């Protein structure tokens, strides 16, 4: 029987599907009866997906141009 602390420790691996089949079943069993952990998993998953889909820290085109200019000195 796994506890909330175990879910907390594994939530990141669980989202990445990097837990064993057995552990995954145990976590899912626990989630069915635990609102707190269900919220934890869904909001952590959403955090990860916001990060993956957002366009943050974009490379500005002038930065890219200056990079190429500086490097090109070394091969021309």
């Amino acid at each position, binding site marked *: 029987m796994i506890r909330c602390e175990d879910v907390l420790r594994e939530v*990141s691996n669980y989202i990445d599907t990097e837990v064993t089949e057995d552990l995954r079943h145990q976590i899912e069993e626990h989630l069915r009866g635990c609102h707190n952990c269900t919220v934890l998993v869904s909001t952590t998953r959403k955090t990860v997906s916001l*990060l993956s889909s957002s366009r943050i820290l974009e490379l500005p085109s002038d930065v890219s141009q200056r990079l190429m200019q500086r490097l090109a000195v070394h091969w021309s």
Partner: protein
Amino acid sequence: MKPEPNGDLSQASDEELVRLVCLGKRELFGHLVGRYQRSVYHIVQGILGNPADSEEVLQESFLKALQHIGGFRGEAQFRTWLTRIAINEARMRLRKYRPKLHDSIDEAPEEGMDMRPRELRDWQPNPEEKLAEAELARLLEKAIRALPSIYREVLVLRDLEHLSNEEAAQALGISLPATKARLLRARLMMRDYLTPHFQHRWHHRLLDRFAQLRRHP
């Protein structure tokens, strides 16, 4: 694949390009820059959080990679090797210019810290719809900057750059379990930071309910 010397190299593998650069076709390094400049910029921006520093470190990382390309032996992927250079350059910059501000890269506790999330309130169903794209990007950047640097590094590598845990561990020069432990902490901290912006608010739920009642009395 073995592209002809003057053929189309946009499809060539990284390793093939590296081989040709080492043979003296140094201009082909430009293809590798094109492939990874965004990624390296993400990483150094993620670590430094300052566009001016990030631009310099971006340039220095690629210069260093070009200078040392003969030392790339192919025991890691080129991308991982390059990422490692960029991380080291960014860390050096942090130490050099902000010795006081810089939060310790090596000394932060890995275990034993209380990780229990403070907020267990649920989020709205579609948080990304609440904010405009640019606004969301600003919020996420702020949240990333608020993380201690060891967590920022791993989060950027895994969740922005989509390196595997193994690649991230190699690039950071730490063990796989340490990588996963840091990633867990980083994601939980991000989640805590974002929760107040996205949580269901009881008075909103009440207003929604009220609006429904008025539409369908």
